[in-house]
């Protein structure tokens, strides 16, 4: 109770006059019934509501404060890392749905993450993507070279480690570089919107989800189908990323903002095209010998006639 009374600045005058009246008295403020009407507002039970009153009633400020108060354990305890996995099943499904259906004007971070970034989604989506790409690549190569006599099936296990390195490096190093870049630009230009490192990792992780069904559909050995899939996946995940980061760079110099967005989309394109080229063999490889043979036969037939 003494702590609550310490913050009651309007009662200071009463104590001073009481002290002036009686210098020998101790200054213990005992609450009486006469004092309660003097308190402004509803009666406060705990000191925490006092803090909120003093620091402002803005809703976004309160959520920022709560977000800051959430991760209060020191980083060497287990509870600190548990705060990054504080999501329920339906929340993860909602975030995945948000990454698949980008709505123009709606920001993925503000709409779905709401100061609760999680590491569950990025980690397990990347793990699933690694195995999806490796297994689909293996299956697609097997189906393409099925009739050839000289082909012996190999599981190509080495490609799993390569896929894992590439995808986890992309999902962690690119957000780190982007976060550093945004931090640097924020120090020069005052931006309204700024993202924490974990929120950027979260956006990148969930935006990679579209590549899982894309990788499975890449088994179809038609070049046109594969490139259409690349375009669609790039369109969806690129637009999620662009709409997330456009508010963060909008206040900046026009060229810098456009260059940032273009770089983000370009790196995303590089990842998808690179994976397609490395893990999936080109489907026209076995067609070439037959098309080379046929003109020879027509030439020989023309010569002999």
């Amino acid at each position, binding site marked *: 109770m003494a702590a609550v009374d310490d913050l009651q600045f309007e009662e200071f005058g009463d104590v001073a006059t009481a002290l002036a009246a009686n210098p020998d008295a101790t200054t213990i403020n005992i609450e009486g019934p006469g004092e309660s009407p003097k308190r402004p507002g509803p009666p406060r039970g705990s000191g925490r509501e006092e803090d909120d009153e003093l620091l402002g009633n803005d809703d976004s400020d309160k959520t920022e404060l709560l977000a800051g108060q959430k991760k209060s354990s020191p980083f060497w305890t*287990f509870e600190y890392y548990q705060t990054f996995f504080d*999501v*329920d099943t339906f929340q993860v499904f909602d975030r995945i749905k948000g990454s698949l259906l980008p709505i123009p004007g709606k920001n993925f971070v503000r709409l779905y993450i709401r100061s609760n970034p999680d590491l569950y989604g990025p980690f*397990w989506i990347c793990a699933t993507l690694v195995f999806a790409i490796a297994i689909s690549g293996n299956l697609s190569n097997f189906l393409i070279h099925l009739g050839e006599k000289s082909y012996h099936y190999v*599981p190509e296990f*080495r490609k799993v480690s390569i896929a894992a390195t590439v995808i986890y490096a992309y999902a962690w190093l690119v957000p780190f570089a982007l976060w550093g870049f945004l931090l640097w630009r924020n120090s020069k230009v005052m931006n309204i919107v700024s993202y924490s490192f974990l929120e950027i990792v979260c956006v990148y992780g969930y935006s990679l989800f579209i590549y899982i069904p894309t990788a499975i559909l890449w088994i179809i050995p038609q070049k046109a189908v594969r490139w259409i899939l690349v375009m669609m996946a790039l369109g969806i995940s690129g637009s999620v990323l662009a709409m997330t980061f456009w508010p963060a760079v909008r206040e900046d110099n026009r060229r810098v903002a456009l260059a940032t967005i273009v770089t983000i989309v370009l790196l995303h394109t590089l990842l998808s095209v690179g994976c397609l080229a490395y893990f999936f063999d080109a489907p026209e490889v076995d067609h070439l010998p037959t098309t080379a043979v046929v003109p020879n036969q027509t030439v020989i037939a023309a010569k002999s006639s």
Partner: protein
Amino acid sequence: MAEAAESPGDPRTTSPRPLFAGLSEISISQDIPVEGEITIPMRSRIRELDSSTLNESVQNTIMRDLKAVGKKFMHVLYPRKSNTLLRDWDLWGPLVLCVTLALMLQRGSADNENDGGPQFAEVFVIIWFGAVTITLNSKLLGGNISFFQSLCVLGYCILPLTVALLVCRLVLLAKPGPINFIVRLFVVIVMFAWSIVASTAFLADSQPPNRKALAIYPVFLFYFVISWMILTFTP
């Protein structure tokens, strides 16, 4: 000794005597025994147990551990909700299964250097680091299962997939062809489903109710990867 204990506390004395004042009056005579048993009956029973596991024959020790491992294998093959697998965890079974799997899945030495199947170390690392990652994931999501209990369950539930690998090895001795492949595919799918059901029966109860799917999905991915390695195994 009895006189010394009674005399300071004697209520019949009128004047209060200082503590242990009567000690000086005692002389130890020859007929008071000063040695004897100081064991309490219960303590002697515990000490008897300790010495019994130390002094028993090696065969008894090995058979006891083997019986515990065998009982857990039975629990995996016929999964019912019971706490035995969780309460008395051990990692012998997972070690034996993992080494068997890795030994049989590793590729031969000479012909395929780069693009073959997994090496022994790769299978070993996938199984153990996969199990550790799943355990950490379930603990971070708020599950109340201990680290080694979860490793124990995940390791023991690889047993159906090991059986699938042995069956595939036998089937591969026959003539290769599409029927061969379909038989292997069917066996691997059935054993994969069995592993998932067995591990879910043991692990699902320890997760918070609104995060069960989040904790079970990595188990599904783990056994799927092992099944893929078994299915694509070519000698």
